[in-house]
């Protein structure tokens, strides 16, 4: 039985140390991250809610089991995002489900960034254009969608993305740049969007 703890005012690192002494403290970390991580997996995948719940459950178990391995040199949030990310990818590969980038009407930033500096002069508030963009982003390679999700939907900086995906920062920058390039190439070929 999980006993509700006084979680306020404690940093993630403090809660990790406390969880190693008393496992009930881990509840604080779970409640602190559950909402965010559910949204993250939802943004990343077409998985139904019960599968997302499974991903999170497995990820929390793994997180707890590997608490002694947590490297305080990186943010706890990056570390747990990494575990959840890997669990989500593993399930996607097992179920051969599709990896999506869920952009809604509020996420103009990603559309602006992708179209920035190009000849694409569409009104990004145009609904049809945004639908088109969403479809094209959906067809981008997995590694591009991962970095786009973390950068624009999760507001992670390059170091955090590097720690989550376990790729050098230079590679993260290159992937974002290639995502933009691939998107533009896809846009130019797609007559429906023009």
């Amino acid at each position: 039985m999980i006993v509700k703890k006084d979680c306020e005012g404690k940093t993630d690192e403090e809660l990790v140390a406390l969880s190693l002494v008393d496992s009930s403290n881990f509840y604080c970390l779970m409640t602190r991250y559950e909402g965010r991580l559910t949204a993250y997996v939802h943004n990343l995948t077409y998985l139904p809610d019960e599968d997302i719940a499974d991903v999170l459950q497995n990820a929390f178990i793994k997180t707890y089991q590997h608490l002694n391995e947590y490297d305080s040199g990186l943010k706890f949030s990056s570390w747990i995002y990494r575990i959840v990310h890997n669990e989500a990818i593993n399930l996607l590969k097992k179920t051969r489900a599709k990896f999506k980038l869920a952009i809604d009407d509020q996420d103009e930033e990603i559309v602006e960034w992708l179209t920035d500096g190009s000849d694409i002069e569409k009104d990004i508030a145009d609904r049809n254009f945004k639908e088109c963009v969403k479809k094209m982003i959906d067809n981008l390679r997995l590694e591009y969608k991962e970095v786009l999700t973390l950068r624009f939907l999760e507001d992670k900086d390059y170091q955090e993305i590097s720690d989550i995906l376990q790729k050098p920062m230079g590679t993260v920058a290159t992937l974002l740049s290639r995502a933009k390039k691939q998107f533009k190439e896809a846009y130019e070929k797609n007559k429906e969007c023009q």
Partner: protein
Amino acid sequence: MIKPIPKWELGLKNGVLWTGVVATILTGGIAVAVVLYMIESNDWDLYYFPYFWVVILLILTIGTLIGYRKTKRGYRIELAKLIVIIVGFSGLAGVAFAKTGMGEKIDSMMAKDIPAYRQLAPMKYQMWMRPEEGYLTGEIQKNENNQLQIRDLEGKTWKIQLDETTNVRGRVELVEGELIKIEGEKTKSNEFEAKDIRPWSNRFGN
């Protein structure tokens, strides 16, 4: 009941990983030392390029890369930089090992114990194992009455005849176990007349 993996277990895994990384770098250093020895022994003539050891170095570099990538922060360094760092460390280790003579020792040991080695890492061996043309190399088994018995690099036993005109170079002692190279003439299927005897190693330029 779910429990955190104990620190000692994680420490052990980490220790094994890092030991592997260091070991592959140092082994790469040995490969570099042998390459340096072979190139130097051939008077920097790259006709007998040491492909075998370069391939070994490549395999070890890949092994080090894979091992390092599995460490906690192993993902942070770009691949190209990492390769340069690994090869750099192996190179430094190789130069240090070469100064101790390790390259020569490894090469000689491999030549003695592994028959196929010389086909993979040909060297002056190819120059000095042509008895029909008057070049022979072997280990002295006996030295009696101006006659040596040697076992050549292919395991064949020869009788080597010496006389007053035979030039025995300075460092050669003609003792059992000594590895020498002989210039002369093959007189019978397993007999050789020596005109010039040198140490197998040409480190001092004899």
